[in-house]
């Protein structure tokens, strides 16, 4: 088990290096000169310009820059923004917002998604099943930002139930509407996945055995079918974290939540390379770690999986 975790952690290293390199190359191919833009309208004295370029190592070839970045990363240093702030401390401010948002979305999608999936799957072809299937297809088909605007208009402005922007009301109130919207896409996938997997498992031979054992229906569903049905849902949760982080870029903008998503979006726009790379690296790291956790969980849920 520990050898498996260690091996997976080691396997993560080349993936992390490869992914950050992709981002690094893309970011430093960004057109325009960020240093000159720092000066604003006033022309920058050449000495200051050169000093700044040197400070950010922009005068070195890409590969040395990247090597330097990796060395820093190994020491836990995510780099320095063009404002001179450390990327780590910038993320620290945004992180709390994003975690609260993602957590709201996650709880919502997991609880409601599994519940809907189970209700639909128990009566395949019934009214609830049809409603869940068509409803989730709709949610998948509507772009999240359209959904967000509609929700803002209806539940925020027209009905006045929820705040439409900012974090002034704290958790959970400020995060309810954006959290629900952010979680809705994954909710649709989780509900469908749970349903399909439950329907498949209800037909499994071991369910017939459980029936033959004279177990009550509730126990068969809870202890036998559901446990097996949730295995694919758990594996989905790893992929899902990527969805949530990507969705945060859109949703935080619309609801004006000062989280990591907004920080990275703004950094891309002002071509603040170090910030983009720093935050992206962090997100990729989280994503990879989450998938490792999912793999471990998968093994805990399904004894047939062995860590080798």
């Amino acid at each position: 088990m520990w050898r498996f975790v260690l091996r997976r952690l080691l396997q993560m290293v080349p993936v992390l290096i490869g992914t950050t390199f992709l981002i690094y190359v893309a970011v430093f191919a960004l057109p325009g000169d960020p240093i000159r833009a720092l000066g604003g309208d006033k022309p920058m004295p050449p000495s200051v310009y050169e000093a700044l370029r040197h400070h950010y190592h922009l005068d070195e070839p890409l590969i040395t820059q990247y090597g330097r970045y990796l060395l820093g990363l190994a020491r836990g240093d995510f780099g320095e923004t063009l404002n001179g702030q450390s990327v780590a401390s910038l993320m620290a401010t945004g992180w709390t917002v994003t975690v609260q948002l993602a957590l709201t979305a996650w709880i919502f999608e997991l609880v409601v998604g599994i519940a809907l999936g189970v209700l639909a799957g128990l009566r395949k072809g019934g009214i609830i099943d049809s409603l869940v299937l068509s409803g989730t297809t709709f949610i998948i088909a509507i772009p999240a930002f359209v959904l967000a605007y509609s929700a803002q208009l209806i539940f925020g402005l027209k009905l006045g139930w929820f705040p439409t922007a900012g974090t002034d009301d704290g958790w959970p109130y400020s995060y309810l509407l954006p959290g629900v919207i952010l979680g809705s896409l994954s909710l649709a996938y989780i509900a469908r996945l749970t349903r399909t997997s439950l329907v498949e498992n209800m037909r499994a031979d071991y369910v017939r055995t459980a029936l033959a054992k004279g177990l009550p229906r509730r126990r068969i569903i809870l202890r036998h079918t559901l446990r097996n049905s949730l295995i694919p849902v758990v594996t989905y949760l790893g992929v899902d974290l990527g969805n949530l982080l990507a969705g945060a870029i859109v949703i935080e903008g619309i609801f004006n939540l000062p989280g990591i998503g907004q920080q990275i979006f703004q950094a891309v726009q002002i071509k603040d390379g170090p910030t983009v790379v720093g935050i992206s690296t962090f997100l990729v790291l989280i994503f990879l770690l989450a998938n490792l956790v999912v793999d471990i969980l998968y093994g805990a849920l399904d004894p047939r999986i062995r860590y080798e």
Partner: protein
Amino acid sequence: MTNTTDPAPGTPLLQVEDLRVEFRMRGSTVNAVNGLSYTLAEGETLAILGESGSGKSVSAQAVMGILDTPPAYVTGGAVRFRGTELLGLPEKKRRTYRGAHIAMIFQDALSALNPVHRVGDQIAEMLLVHRGMSRGDARKRAIELMERVRIPSAGSRANDYPHQFSGGMRQRVMIAMALALEPDVLIADEPTTALDVTVQAQIMKLLRDLQDEMAMGLILITHDLGVVADVADRIVVMYAGRVVEQAEVRELYARPAHPYTEGLLASVPRVDVRDRALTPIKGSPPNLAAIPSGCPFHPRCPRAREERCPDEVPALRDVTGTGHGSACHYAEEVLGG
């Protein structure tokens, strides 16, 4: 058991009467069981013999009350356990018979066991649910049961998962689970089909030993004449969801009274008769969505005659006066050779 009223003397342990099961599919109805009747006496071993599609497994599931509904529906008949009609019972009551009075084991033990629970827990679950035993006691009893079906080092193996067992050992786990509540009837649906021949013999011996120890009725569903020969007391032969012949084992082997049984016996190699040509039954099993008119076997029957077989459904009748039943218009002819 204490929770059933003592039946009148002479009441059979299990009585199935005119059982009918159909599958309602989109656009067609498949008649899987068409008026099946048989009885099982206390301590008796009854073999139900038939090809796949003869309705033998479906009828067993109907007796257990574990059919997949939809698409399968019981459309008629009766299943009486010690005189109590089971088919009309509400599910809540019916459930208490399953496992406790009538238990069942299946062909493929790997898929029939839940892959994510330890085998010890799966056995103990019977005792937890039906007997309200404590976890510790149930577990102890589960290990005893595993020892009883001769699983070596049962104490530690109780913590293993189904995929960690060999095929034969898995079937033993299934048997231990089915016997946990000391049922009165055990239905074994092709229990050895998926196993190697040597393991088959071990499992059959185990079933026979346990049946003797526990004095239960055993219904052995199989397509394999060889398996039943030295285990069963009586044999019921099914074709197209009906009984076509029933008799004591020796009687049936010695003097088959239905052309189908005759065909089955002729298509099995025998060690005791040398240089005998094997003759397969021609044609293929009937399409259950369109069962042939009259005698369902007539399109494949070498003895079929134009005047009766295509039109008249033969009833099961006692052809020897000693309880040897056959559903063939010309049973006497078959008996005569």
